[in-house]
């Protein structure tokens, strides 16, 4: 029986204190690893007899501008279809050199998901066969989902951030 505890135990056995940040929210376990190790961890999760996380449900990034040195998180959602267990795996990278190894060799589905992540966050997936923009136009020279690009026009004064629930005092 594959439980969150046994997954954590197996991962710490294999990678020691390199895998950190084990948390559980809404039944799904989440952990992180250094970005150099992302493929090793994914491969281990894929190959291990018991773990068998062979289905990549989702791959995307999150931008945390306040975490200096680990601004971008690449989040993998993995699914073991045999035991029906889901797992969330994160790697953090700085925003100056956002290089993360590509998982396309392991999951064909990662191809477009990584292109989408590159398109919106500028994560440079090293080893990706065709890393170019997918939903936005090719001429775009910025990464729109980063938090420094607010949705509203900044020259407008009638749309205060407080009205939209962020940055307010009340």
């Amino acid at each position, binding site marked *: 029986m594959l439980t969150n505890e046994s997954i954590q135990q197996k991962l710490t056995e294999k990678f020691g204190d390199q895998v950190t940040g084990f948390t559980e*929210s*809404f039944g*799904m376990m*989440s952990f992180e690893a250094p970005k150099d190790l992302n493929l090793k961890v994914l491969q281990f999760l894929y190959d291990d007899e018991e773990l068998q996380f*062979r*289905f*990549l*449900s*989702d791959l*995307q990034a*999150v*931008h945390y501008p306040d975490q200096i040195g680990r601004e971008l998180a690449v*989040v993998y*959602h993995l699914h073991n*279809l045999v035991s*029906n267990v*889901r797992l*969330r795996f994160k790697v953090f990278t700085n925003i100056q050199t956002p290089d993360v190894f590509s998982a396309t060799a392991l*999951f*064909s*589905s990662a*191809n*477009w*998901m990584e292109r*989408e992540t590159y398109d*919106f966050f500028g994560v440079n997936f090293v080893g990706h066969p065709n890393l170019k*923009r*997918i*939903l*936005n*136009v090719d001429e775009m020279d910025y990464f*729109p*989902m980063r938090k420094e690009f607010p*949705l*509203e026009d900044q020259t407008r004064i009638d749309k205060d951030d407080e009205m*939209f*629930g*962020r940055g307010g005092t009340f």
Partner: protein
Amino acid sequence: MSDTSTIHHIKLPDGSIEKQTTTLNLGPTHPATHGVFQNILELDGERIISTESTVGYIHRAFEKLAERRPLFQITPITDRLNYCSSPINNMGWHLTCEKLLGIQTPKRVDYLRVIIMELARIADHLICNSIVGVDTGAYTGFLYVMQYRELIYEIYEQICGSRLTTNIGRIGGFERNFTNDAFKKLEKFLDEYPKVLAEFENLFTRNRIFMERTIGAGPISAERALNYGFTGPNLRAAGVDYDVRVHNPYSSYQDFQFEIPVGTTGDCYDRFLVRNQEMWQSISIIKQAYQKVQEFKGADAEVYHADVPEYYLPEKKDVYTKMEALIWHFKIIMGEINIPPGELYFPVEGANGELGFYLISDGGRTPYRLHFRRPCFVYYQAFEELVKGSMLSDAVIVMSSLNLIAGEMDA
């Protein structure tokens, strides 16, 4: 130079080989794409050598928009993902919010939701399957089942007032109770549709021409399908019995008896059969759910939402007469309710497969990050592998039998 080189009207540079293949643009506004996306096909005669897909023509920045909207304003965004089955997207979003907010919905609400979601699944599958028919040259089936999609839309109309982009339901339940007309129309649907579906199947399933066109077109093995992130009917056609409704039941799906139909070869014919079978299963689920709904008597039959004043809009007559209701009304409409912090991935079984909502809240009034896992977007990248080496006409059927919805792909 010998005489043979003078055959060319245009003199090629020395050492170059004359191009033997044809480049064909299928899309972005080609009738066969049934949506706005482009396939650049490299053809050798009529055989496809390679394809390159371009998506994003109707990208509307939903994820960015969602970062500045309170939860209830995100529901209309989800309508526009897979617009053939908007209610499933709406319900998926409400369920995600309810899980994050810790709202427990009453059983009757769950069953009503199941009815609506399965109706949406039928509407989506019947449009997909009849379009496969149209693309193979059989228009009749399409026109025949279309009147029942109309009936499904009338049921939506009775419940929420709109037809295509439904914005149906609210966080915690429905905006109003189902009317008697809605139930009457549902009964009419349950009474008439099975006969029509049986006839629709008769038209196609053992039709020699249809079989010749679809069997062996765009096949995929179970292993490759999983690797490509296939979900929903397309994965099940390859022989994997993965269904979110069974693996991670939501909205009380565990209370229902139904089967997961699977195929073997993963080709267009199997996808067609799996979708047909799923419609039969959906009809059976709706019947069970309707029976369960009818078992609620008296005051229980009036329950259509959970008691969550922080998120569920009070009734208008209360807003005008009660102070409390007025306060909540303003707080909700102005988006002044903070969402508890948390991180959540919530999948539901959309008509095309696993529709996932990845929601991160930092305690503000809008999501910090919201990502939609759109099944179409994930599996469309397998298109090149599916059609490589097949005929041009197969590419058209593969596209329609994958049920590619541009709205879902481009978000």
